[in-house]
């Protein structure tokens, strides 16, 4: 029993570090450049998802809207929050594009077609991206220090959703719906 104690202690320490400490250390947290509230825009401005996140004419998807979408309403302050004032001072007035951190950024060699998933498969945004529409602010962007991908794509224990956006997650859904063709459908 006595001999077993250091072993057990080591194991317990490692388990604690691995499950509680590791997720804390492996991710670097960065705030988004603008403290944007989806809820305010949906409720007060009556916007729908695809007013800003829409399919373009050629079939590609404008995931992150560009500054001109914001300035079409926010050329002048529309509310009283400090966040909006900061946005106008730092981005609208100098006409500078905010450098958003994309939660769902995939590697270069992945080809994902929003058009195929929205129009042909009829998926809803929340099924992959979570209920962003109800959020009151933008959560911090947690980026893996080594590989550079976000926690949404490559999750580790203790995350809000068990499923990330790794290839296994795509394949699980594709297998379920029997839409499997070839590697090159998604890789380029």
């Amino acid at each position, binding site marked *: 029993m006595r001999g077993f104690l*250091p072993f057990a202690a*080591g194991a317990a320490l490692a388990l604690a570090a691995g499950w509680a400490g590791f997720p804390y250390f*492996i991710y670097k947290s960065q705030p988004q450049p603008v403290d944007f509230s989806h809820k305010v825009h949906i409720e007060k401005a009556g916007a729908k998802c695809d007013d800003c996140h829409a399919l373009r004419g050629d079939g590609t998807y404008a995931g992150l809207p560009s500054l001109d979408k914001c300035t079409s309403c926010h050329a002048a302050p529309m509310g009283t929050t400090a966040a909006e004032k900061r946005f106008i001072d730092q981005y609208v007035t100098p006409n500078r594009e905010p450098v958003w951190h994309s939660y769902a950024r995939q590697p270069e060699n992945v080809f994902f077609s929003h058009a195929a998933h929205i129009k042909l498969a009829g998926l809803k945004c929340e099924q992959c991206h979570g209920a962003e529409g109800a959020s009151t602010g933008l959560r911090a962007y947690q980026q893996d220090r080594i590989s550079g991908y976000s926690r949404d794509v490559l999750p580790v224990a203790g995350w809000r959703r068990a499923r990330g956006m790794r290839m296994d997650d795509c394949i699980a859904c594709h297998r379920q719906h029997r839409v499997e063709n070839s590697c090159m459908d998604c890789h380029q």
Partner: protein
Amino acid sequence: MGTTRRDLFKLLGGSAVGALFTPAPWRLITDTALWSENWPGIPRPGSGEIRMRYTNCSLCPAGCAMRARCVGDQPVSLAGVKGHPLSHGALCPWGIAAHQLPYHPARLRRGPVERAAAAAADAIALCGAREHVAVLDLRPGRTASWTYRRAMAAVPHGLYIATPQAEWAFDLAAARTVLSLGAPLADGWGTPGNVFAARNTFRLIQADPVETRTAGFADAWLPIRPGSASALASAVAGEIPIAEAARQTGLAADHIRGLIAELHDNGPSLVLARNMSPEAMRANVALGAPGHTIVGRRETPVPEAWRKSAPVTMLDAVPDGSIRVLFIDESAPGDYFPWSAIAPKLANDSLVIAFAWTNEGYGRHAQFTLPAPVFTETLDDLPPAVDAVTAVFRLTLPLIAPQAVVVKPLEFIARLAGLPSDEALHERANAIHKTARGHVFTPGDGATTPLKSLSADNFWKALHQGACWLDAPCQGACRDLVLAGQEPLRPATQAGLPLALVAGDSTGPPLSSPLTSKLYRESNLRQPANRVALAPETARASGVASGARAILETVAARLPVTVAVDPGLPPDVVRVAGRAARALGARGKVVPA
């Protein structure tokens, strides 16, 4: 008892086993693999909305239409415009990669602009009575060319040197038989897209010393001796006996007789040459080409006020030693004048300022080389190519901001003369619009609209979206064509150079994207400048073997080269890369290194 080392090892062992049950080690492996796939050394393409913009290429006189696929404002790939009346959707390899030119490492990024301007002003002031200030324009006919002419009229002793623009053009679509005396129809002549589009309507007979790309592309190849093309032209014109032509070219007399008969019987015929010599022109007249396959072409309209400008002077007509200040505009490549033809015209202590993309061209001989903008960074217009049967007007548009500290040659020279230069293009467009002739092709929708139905403003806007104005055909208005032909500049030569230099392929523009190494270095599709090819017996006679290092001696230079042996070459000929052939002259010698 205390903690022993054994306890420590047990602790570590327990940690290791425990760690295996956490996500940490597995995640670290995955992360490292992912990092290695995307490490910072690998560049990432831009992302964003893809837009199409239309412009015209300015790397050679053809001026083919281009569709630029842009991410935001940055072009990421270029393609031809299918259905375009001039270029028919074709783009050459240099044009396809032209969007990379602004970032080329060999490009000049800054230059002594102030010093050059001061030196030019001083030198102009010091110009003697019989001395001149001259602009050498390699692509005449542009609006910029007219501004140079007006500037040289405003500057005392100003001279504008260029090849006079022809008032006629070759109509390939109207020809049924074409005899080409070394004109590289398949490799950079006229507008390549036009040649290929018209190809099925005529029988092409190529006369070339070696089997060039065009000779392989043609319906028949006449293997003539180097330098004997003018003899063949004279025979076709009926000026020399066929036996004499047979002796000079090395062809059988019957063969030449059959050729001449074919040209007369299967008309309309056309004789083309690399440089349209007087003999080739007379051959065309003998075949009845004027009015059929050589058609008159009006000049693209210019405002009346511009007519009072310096006349076009040919380089030959300039007295020796009379140029004190010479500006060379290399940013619109076209005609080629070897330095040996220019140098005698310069006075002692003359000042030469070249506007170029690199130091490798005339910059080697100039006192100042100022960086010029690459065509995707600047607004300019393009004169019609030699096979455009009507006058045209199209612009090359700035797609991105200049990536270097550039000076536009037009502005520099106009400022010296005190002329404004930015409104010139708009004035010319207005002059064209006033004629109410012709129609406008818009690449975005492929539509052709008569010019009359567009307002001047809409015409100017359409030009800025890549549209092209095509004049109405000339027909009766220019019936009396004066076909003079142009004496080729006789390159300097010296004795003791037994081999004739033959160009293996086309020259290409002065600056080309690194990707063209695919053609020269990463494959053997085109001949690089440091390689020459000899026939087996010629190689033996010169004392070199295949793969050996040798020196190519010419009047202009001694080049270290590698030798390739090619049984497909005639004896006493050395085949060099196109770009080199132009500068080296007509004869050479290969000696072991």
